[in-house]
């Protein structure tokens, strides 16, 4: 029974990871952060006056590490204060309040980016649109809140797993804010690596031919018109939520799933911290399973690339 509980908590973590990374990517699209923002930054210089939000606090990994660590630190302070009185129920208050503080701090950083960056574009006659400025702050904060609350929830579960699952020795030794830092960096790195492609390659250059890499001469010439009227960054979110966002969530969800799965299976094969517990076998089995998953990934990618080459064929056009 405790093992089932351990697997159940693992699946809760995976679900939260999926939601967290999906909303992380969508938040970066809302405010236009990270790599594709280079085009939004370049557009006025190319004569393309636009109504995109222009936010690049830092790389996504660092900005999310900061927001999540702030959330984790506030949550830990509240837990230290209220856990002795209310027990585990204190988390019901601590996690949302921590995440709210983290997301508000993120929104403040986002709010100073837009006027600063667009003011620097005055020489290219790029205006600061106040409706764009006000209209994007709340979506940025809300998307960020969902991502940060999920990361804080994951960190809470992982640091309290022994109490929650009833299996001794399963809690991660890292404190809650440190786990928030680790998952914040990871979620940002993944959101930047995968989800940005859908925004940068497809959505920003939707008026260019589908199926080719964006040539250097296109850079800065972003698509400024939506299905109806002039496009803002909020229109980008609705588009990327159909493919780029869920795919990004899937990446983080799969990573967390297989990282936890191979560790738990290894622990079971090693005797699950009972009398017959053998740490060497537990660690070795976990490593072996990880290598097996890695081989499957290599085979899958080789097959995928081969399929794409066969299906799409060589480049045709100028």
């Amino acid at each position, binding site marked *: 029974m405790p093992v089932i509980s351990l697997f159940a908590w693992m699946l809760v973590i995976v679900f939260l990871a999926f939601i967290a990374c999906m909303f992380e990517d969508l938040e970066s699209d809302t405010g236009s952060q990270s790599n594709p923002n280079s085009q939004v930054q370049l557009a006025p210089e190319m004569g393309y006056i636009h109504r995109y939000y222009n936010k690049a606090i830092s790389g996504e990994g660092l900005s999310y590490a900061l927001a999540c660590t702030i959330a984790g630190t506030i949550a830990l302070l509240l837990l230290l204060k209220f856990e002795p009185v209310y027990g585990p129920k204190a988390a019901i208050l601590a996690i949302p309040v921590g995440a709210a503080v983290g997301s508000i701090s993120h929104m403040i950083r986002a709010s100073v980016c837009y006027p600063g960056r667009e003011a620097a574009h005055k020489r290219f006659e790029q205006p600061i649109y106040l409706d764009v400025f006000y209209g994007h702050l709340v979506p940025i904060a809300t998307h960020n809140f969902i991502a940060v609350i999920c990361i804080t929830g994951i960190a809470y579960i992982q640091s309290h797993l022994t109490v929650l699952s009833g299996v001794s020795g399963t809690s991660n030794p890292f404190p809650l804010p440190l786990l928030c830092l680790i998952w914040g960096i990871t979620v940002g790195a993944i959101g930047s690596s995968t989800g940005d492609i859908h925004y940068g390659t497809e959505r920003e250059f939707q008026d260019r031919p589908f199926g*080719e*890499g*964006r040539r250097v001469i296109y850079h800065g010439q972003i698509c400024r018109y939506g299905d109806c009227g002039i496009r803002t960054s909020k229109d980008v979110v609705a588009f990327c939520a159909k493919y780029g966002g869920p795919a990004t969530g899937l*990446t983080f969800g799969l990573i967390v799933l297989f*990282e936890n799965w191979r560790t738990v299976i290894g622990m079971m094969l090693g005797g699950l911290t009972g009398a017959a517990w053998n740490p060497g076998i537990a*660690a070795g089995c976990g490593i072996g399973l990880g290598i097996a998953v890695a081989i499957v990934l290599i085979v899958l990618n080789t097959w995928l690339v081969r399929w794409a080459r066969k299906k799409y064929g060589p480049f045709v056009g100028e």
Partner: protein
Amino acid sequence: MEPITLVIILVCIIIGGMLGSLGVHLLPVGGAPAAMATATGIATGCVMLMTGSAVTGLFTASTVATFWESNPSVVLVSLSGGVGAMLMMGFTMLIANLIYIFGAGVVPVSGRAAVDPITKESQTEYKTPRTDGHGVPNVCFYSGMIGGLAGGFGGALIYVILMSGEYAGFSIETAVIVALGIFIANAILAAYNIGGTIEGFHDPKFKERIVTGLTCAFVVSLMCGILVLIAIETGTLGAGGVL
């Protein structure tokens, strides 16, 4: 502390730092141009990607290190970290390719090699003109997996040598922050050495710059290692220290 133990700690920190640097050089990093499918590789910076994968490995390594009541197996914990980082890289590159292929309709193709050195698939005719390749082709995928393994192993090696009671005996929190600090210093140096984009071990840039990168990693890891040894000897960060 025994001099031989101090030497082992120093050597492990240097090996860990150099493996981190090697890992960064092996990753297929396309940076901002890759987000527009203008360059081959993963659409983010070297440091961000390597740190993201290394901390994922570090998370698993920290759990595995708790399997032992004291003195965890250095090799097994480091390997756990390496495999964790490798899986992170693998999933990221696979889903990135899914978005390139189904979201943008481009074929993963190398911009630096006319023929894939591993699968022998031709690349040039699949490449969009006036781009530096796009997506994560097979050779870059293999290179990224090896890079993740090397970087994750290096990061976890520094962590386990610092937290093990048999060696430095730092608290877990201090060990992970120090390990991350040394690792990120090496990753940033490697990113400067690469200077933009790199596709992996088949990229001519790799052969040109790896020696400089590893030499720099050796020097910075040695300096960090000496600082750690001073901290151990003065009791500043170890058991009974201020942290």
